């Protein structure tokens, strides 16, 4: 991956593009939420995600990152306020919003092909078209040759690729990823990060990413939101400018990267 | 017959006999009981053990100096392994299990006859079959491989029906009433208490062991090894039995209270059941006749011996026993009764 040719496109183009885009894909509007009556987890949260944006949530454990993700996925409803997708209230889970779980949540009884093709069962897609698209996406995540394998025959990293491919295939407008790479080892994780960036480049759609790793957040994101300990308040909202394409090894050790890293590290420390 | 039907008023003579023996016992009881071995006496929880209970509960075993331990068995079949294992010394059951035990090489001998239930075993049918002849094509419940099975075949044979024209269903006595009530069988050959239940459910008796001339007797068998090692115990047992028998015959109502209680029945219910059995008690002094045990050393001429021969052929024919010993004489030993009667 580090061998892919580097096109030193300034990321400022990308940032200004996002800046000028009027389209708010997801919007949380004064959202309050709690799992029980005893304690609120989020209070009056405002958050917007633009079309095509790669947004990462950082914050101390238990601050409500997963909760925000669950609300957008439609697994829970806000107590107060609105969570909208393209202006419409989110009523429940939908194929328009893909989710990748830390545990990958693959169907162990289906082959890679069947897992990836699962979403098509519920769409009016011709068999031929379906086959073609499954093939394409499997190639895209670098799993060609593993179509007939079962999850137990794959490594942790490969399993996460299948999970990503499975969500991509139904072309969701946003992909919600809750610490998707936390359970794989460091080397594999870096590979997966680069794959994800490439995929994001090729497939339109926003990504909401949750992680605990500052390095991962800096490397991946267009924008990082740091949440407060205090009822999911937003402490910082930072745009990341790194040279395009993102997925080069140099972007992990460049001065700009180290600067973001140091800055975010100190900001996080301040919250704790 | 010299035997007394239960329920008949006992003669004065018998009552006298009871009194005299009771007196005799008191003297014997003075003898040290300590050197007498413990005797394990088997009885059947699913049947009626009137005289046994009288002997045990009224203290006749103690009076003669026997240290008796009663051992409950669910059926006569369960006695066989117990005899083989030496778990029980003397026990009563019916001829089939005794023959099974003897044929499989367990050393036992029949030493005493208890009673002859002449109508306990009977064929009971619903309205569809008023007599044996009308059983043609019907379904009949029977416990395959028992004396009931043997008797049933004799009954339908006597009525001129071929075995192939009836449908025999193998049922345990405990299952008969349920099957009859559910209308799954038209008739059943069985014995008390199941037979009584069938009567209660509306069944009529259409044949009995007596009516078909079958031999029916409850008999006492002992492990030969035990008997030979303890001849004095055998004699004492006969003595106690004699006393209990007379006590029971003197007042059957009172003698039945033990069993009525054990079987969870009112005295009336139990009395009716015993009545249906139509049992005759085989009196001590009649044991040595050819109708019962016969004289010592001459069992071949007895009805019991002939019945055994017939049962043996039947069980071999049914494939339940590979063979039965040519000589069944060692199975019957009336010498202990004879010894006791002599000493009396």
């Amino acid at each position, binding site marked *: 991956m580090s061998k892919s040719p580097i096109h030193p496109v300034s990321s400022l183009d990308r940032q200004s593009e996002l800046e000028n885009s009027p389209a708010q894909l997801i919007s949380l509007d004064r959202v309050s939420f709690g799992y029980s009556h005893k304690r609120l987890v989020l209070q009056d949260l405002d958050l917007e995600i633009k079309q095509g944006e790669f947004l990462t949530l950082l914050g101390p454990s238990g601050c409500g990152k997963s909760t925000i993700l669950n609300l957008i996925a439609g697994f829970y409803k806000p*107590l107060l306020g609105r969570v909208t997708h393209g202006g419409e209230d989110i009523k429940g889970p939908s194929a328009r919003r893909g989710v990748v779980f830390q545990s990958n949540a693959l169907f162990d009884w289906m082959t890679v092909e069947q897992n990836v093709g699962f979403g098509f069962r519920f769409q009016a897609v011709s068999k031929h078209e379906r086959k073609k698209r499954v093939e394409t996406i499997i190639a895209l995540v670098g799993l060609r040759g593993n179509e007939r394998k079962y999850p137990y025959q794959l490594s942790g990293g490969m399993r996460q690729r299948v999970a990503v491919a499975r969500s991509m295939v139904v072309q969701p407008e946003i992909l919600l990823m809750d610490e998707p790479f936390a359970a794989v080892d460091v080397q594999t994780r870096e590979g997966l990060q680069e794959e994800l960036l490439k995929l994001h480049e090729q497939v339109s759609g926003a990504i909401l990413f949750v992680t605990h790793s500052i390095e991962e957040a800096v490397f991946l994101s267009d924008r990082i939101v740091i949440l407060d300990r205090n009822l999911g308040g937003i402490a910082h909202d930072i745009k990341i400018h790194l040279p395009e394409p993102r997925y080069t090894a140099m972007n992990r050790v460049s001065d700009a990267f180290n600067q973001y890293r140091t800055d975010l590290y100190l900001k996080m420390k301040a919250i704790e | 017959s010299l035997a007394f039907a239960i329920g008949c008023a006992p003669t004065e003579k018998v009552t006298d006999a009871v009194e005299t023996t009771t007196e005799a016992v008191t003297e014997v009881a003075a003898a040290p009981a300590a050197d007498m071995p413990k005797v394990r006496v088997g009885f059947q929880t699913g049947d009626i053990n009137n005289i046994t209970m009288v002997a045990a509960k009224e203290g006749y075993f103690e009076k003669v100096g026997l240290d008796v331990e009663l051992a409950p068995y669910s059926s006569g079949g369960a006695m066989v*392994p117990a005899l083989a294992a030496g778990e029980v010394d003397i026990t009563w059951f019916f001829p089939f299990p005794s023959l099974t035990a003897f044929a499989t090489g367990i050393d036992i001998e029949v030493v005493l006859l208890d009673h002859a239930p002449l109508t306990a075993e009977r064929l009971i049918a619903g309205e569809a079959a008023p007599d044996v002849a009308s059983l043609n094509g019907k379904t009949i419940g029977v416990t395959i491989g028992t004396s009931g099975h043997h008797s049933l075949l004799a009954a339908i044979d006597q009525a001129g029906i071929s075995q192939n024209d009836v449908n025999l269903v193998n049922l345990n006595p405990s299952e008969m009433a349920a099957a009859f009530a559910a209308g799954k069988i038209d008739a059943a050959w069985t014995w008390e208490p199941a037979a009584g239940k069938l009567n209660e459910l509306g069944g009529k008796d259409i044949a009995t062991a007596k009516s078909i001339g079958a031999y029916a007797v409850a008999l006492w068998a002992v492990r030969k090894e035990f008997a030979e090692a303890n001849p004095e115990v055998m004699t004492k047992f006969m003595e106690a039995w004699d006393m209990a028998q007379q006590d029971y015959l003197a007042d059957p109502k009172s003698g039945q209270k033990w069993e009525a209680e*054990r079987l969870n029945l009112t005295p009336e219910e139990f009395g009716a059941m015993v009545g249906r059995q139509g049992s005759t008690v085989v009196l001590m002094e009649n044991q040595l006749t050819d109708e019962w045990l016969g004289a010592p050393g001459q069992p071949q001429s007895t009805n019991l011996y002939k019945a055994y021969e017939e049962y043996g052929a039947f069980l071999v024919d049914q494939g339940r026993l590979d063979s039965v010993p040519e000589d069944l004489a060692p199975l019957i030993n009336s010498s202990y009764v004879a010894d006791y009667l002599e000493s009396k």
Partner: protein
Amino acid sequence: MQLKMSKSSDKMTAFEGQDLQTQALREKAMLFCVAIAIPSLILILWEMTTRMGWVDELFLPSLSGIVNEFFAMTRKGYAGTPLLSHVLGSLRRVFTAFTVGTLVGLLLGLLMGYYKYVRAAFYVVTELLRPIPPLAFITLFILWFGIGEVSKVLIILYAGALIVMLNTMAGVQSCPKDKILAAQTLGANDLAIFLYVILPAALPSIFTGMRVALSVDFGILVAAELLAGDLGIGYIIQDASTFFNVEGLFVGILMIGFFGVMSDFLLRIIASRVVHWQG
């Protein structure tokens, strides 16, 4: 705090009204009601069938008849023995068999789990014994162990012991390797590892086995008391069958059900006390 009402959909956790816990509580109450209502309904229907004459009492005794029979038994006893003696007799048998069977199964299971040669040695025998029902052994047990308590207890014991053994073995084998290695690096010898590491690690599995064994032991009670019995709930069931006392039969059956459930409940409590560390 005033909350807007959001239309509830059955797929979502809906929050209605101010108290979020109310709904959870209400659901629990509802579930409890259903759990009580259905059995009650069955009982009522049962009583009705006979009261209304829909079904002959011969086929299904009335509920009240069974209850009456039960109280009659408590007063008069059954077959000349107080009901309590029957119950205690059966319970004593089950618990003796359960205790001894658990000990035997535990010991064998620990050895089989720990030493693969012991495991190999017993494998064929235990596999072959497993499907053989206790009922088949009655004659042999009379022959070998007589008709006393020993036989009855052994009949109940062996099936339960096999189950405890298999579960103990699985428990020992499931003990994480790294816990054993950790104990070794702390200086523990073989015995200490066995006592402080492997045995506790196997306990949850052992208790699972014990619960299954206890339920099996109750199931075998009737067969065991077929063996020269004159006492016990199993004896009542058989004797009631013999005398076609369907009401008595039901009393016996329901008593086994009751004591089975009760003792499982007790064992569950004990298990959760002993294996408290699973949280």
